[in-house]
């Protein structure tokens, strides 16, 4: 009986970790949609690129003799966040602003094109094979029944949760308490009016892209080092699932993205653990359909006036 409990706890741990990744990446999708009504299909690639940046920075630091896991991860995150924010800023100018206001399909194709470009850019630069890194933070707690089932909680998982929660709190504070954050919210509610208040909405939009990218970068570095293996295509599946999570939680709503991400991660872990890994995706997408049937705007979503 106790074994069942520990197994459940273990799957919960797995779910939270996966959910953290989905939540962080989902934030990017939801913020961009909230402000300009567009799905940024190139967003998953930000996760992939920051994983690579993380690997490269950590490898470089290790060569310089740094071996504290704390410093390595912090260093990787600072560089990844900086670079991906710049990237997020510029991708908006290059791929999306020129086609803003035109047919939505054009923006969609532009985004998908950007995604393919990035995957192959990294592939050509780095090779399409998996790159691996030895675990940085080892060890963890085990508890449970040594004769039956033992749940393991690795330290790295805890690191991921703590940093994810910190990032989400930071973002929430930014959005609710700071001037820029309020401007972001105003833009997502009424872009035209915000312009009429004298605020440069183009800058706010670019800032939104940058913030979304930074969140994905946190996920990319953390989970890249956690799983230890990356290739140019990891962003694709994760991006797709994170997008699903954003819709599940209510696209356009930041708390929705966080909630949707966690829910999806836990649902997947539970399904893979108790049913079979094969049904994981069936359950995830089935959940999405169910929620949308009864709450078409997602769990925390609100009915929106059509954005122009």
């Amino acid at each position, binding site marked *: 009986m106790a074994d069942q409990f520990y*197994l459940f706890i273990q*799957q919960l741990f797995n779910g939270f970790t996966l959910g953290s990744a989905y939540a962080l990446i989902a934030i990017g999708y939801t913020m961009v949609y909230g402000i300009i009504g567009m799905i940024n299909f190139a967003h998953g690639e930000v996760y992939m690129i920051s994983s690579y940046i993380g690997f490269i920075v950590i490898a470089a630091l290790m060569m310089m003799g740094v071996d504290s896991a704390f410093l390595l991860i912090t260093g990787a995150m600072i560089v990844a966040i900086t670079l991906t924010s710049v990237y997020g800023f510029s991708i908006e100018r290059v791929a999306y602003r020129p086609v803003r206001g035109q047919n939505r399909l054009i923006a969609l194709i532009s985004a998908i094109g950007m995604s393919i470009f990035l995957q192959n850019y990294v592939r050509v630069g780095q090779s399409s094979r998996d790159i691996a890194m030895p675990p940085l933070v080892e060890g963890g707690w085990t508890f449970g029944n040594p004769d039956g089932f033992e749940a*393991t909680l690795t330290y790295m998982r805890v690191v991921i949760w703590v940093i994810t929660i910190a990032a989400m709190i930071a973002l929430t504070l930014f959005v609710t308490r700071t001037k820029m954050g309020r401007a972001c919210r105003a833009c997502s509610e009424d872009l035209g009016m915000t312009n009429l208040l004298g605020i440069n909405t183009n800058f706010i939009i670019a800032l939104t892209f940058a913030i979304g990218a930074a969140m994905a970068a946190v996920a990319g570095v953390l989970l890249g080092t956690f*799983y230890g*293996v990356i290739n140019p295509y990891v962003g694709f599946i994760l991006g797709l699932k994170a997008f699903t999570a954003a819709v599940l939680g209510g696209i356009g709503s930041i708390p929705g993205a966080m909630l949707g991400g966690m829910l999806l991660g836990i649902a997947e872990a539970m399904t893979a653990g108790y049913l079979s*890994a*094969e049904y994981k995706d069936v359950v995830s997408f089935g959940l999405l359909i169910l929620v949308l049937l009864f709450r078409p705007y997602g769990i925390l979503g609100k009915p929106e006036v059509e954005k122009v």
Partner: protein
Amino acid sequence: MIKHTMKALGVAAIALAVAACSEKADEPKEAIKIAVAGPFSGPLAQFGEMQISGAKKAVADLNAAGGLLERPVELVELDDVCEPKQATTVANQVVSAEISFVIGHLCSSSTLPASDVYEDAGVVMITPASTNPEITERGYEYVFRTVGRDDQQGPFAAGVVKSLAPTNVAVVHDKSAYGEGLASQVNENLKSMGVNVVMYEAITAGEADYSPLIAKLKAESIDLMFFGGYDPELAKIMRQGRDGGWTGQFVGGDGVSNNKIVEAAGEAADGLIATQPKSYDGEASNAALVAEFEALGVNASDTFVLPSYAAVMALSEAITAAGTADTAAVKDALRKQVFSTAVGNIQWDGKGDIVGGENTFAAYLWKKDGTAELKTF
């Protein structure tokens, strides 16, 4: 007057004759093209590497010895990224380029659809790696392989598993033609051998997180997991398995048996047992060849290097024996004799399989330093 004309005519005639002769001498013989089709980019590119280095050396050796039927041999490299749709495109490219011989493909999921095209067009195809049984079960005449089949590797692998005497076994696959094919063979054989298979599951390749699977392994007290699939996936599973506290034995097939898996999984790969086509690099008869490969920077013990080399060499022998590059004759010639190759003596049966293929597999123990040791069980 007439004398001049005669002279002129004579000179012209000689000139023409000389011109005709030199033209014949200068005219380059048309090369015999051999296509090599496999994954040269993508997550399984390391297998393509093995395939192409074996084939390249063979073609180089042939040309150094004067070519084939006094014609130079040309190698054409075509990338199918191990994707069935791409494989069909490549096959169509081969046919429209009028290439008659293919060494490939590598992944069974590519070889299956590509071979349909080749059989239709009468292109001779020898795969140095695809092990799915169905490839040679369709009555095709132009399809051959220089490795065994999964319905031979399966029983062999099951035997390896049984000799490790596990209590609870899990069989996991990646839903690919190769992976699922091999896993189901292993599963059936294990059951008929009386081994306790508790779990038979599929994962989706490309996913990042396998921790729920690991938790399941622990919950069901699995002490041995057999994986039908390729090394990128098993590397992640092994890594997350060890991180998650699973201490059981990992066993896999030829899709995981290369040192990339140690690169990706690090210490977690230590102790992996994998079956694969026997490595003939240790044979005395191959000593010189292995040294030549080493000089080129190629590790001849990599799974598909020598089968690829052997495929080209056997093909060239058959073409010479047939005296023509006409594929109808060559395909018959491939079945008419025993070929002495770098992977042992090969005799092809009516289906295109190696006679005695069940003896072509061996098991290797992988260590964290990236080397593998032949193990007998």
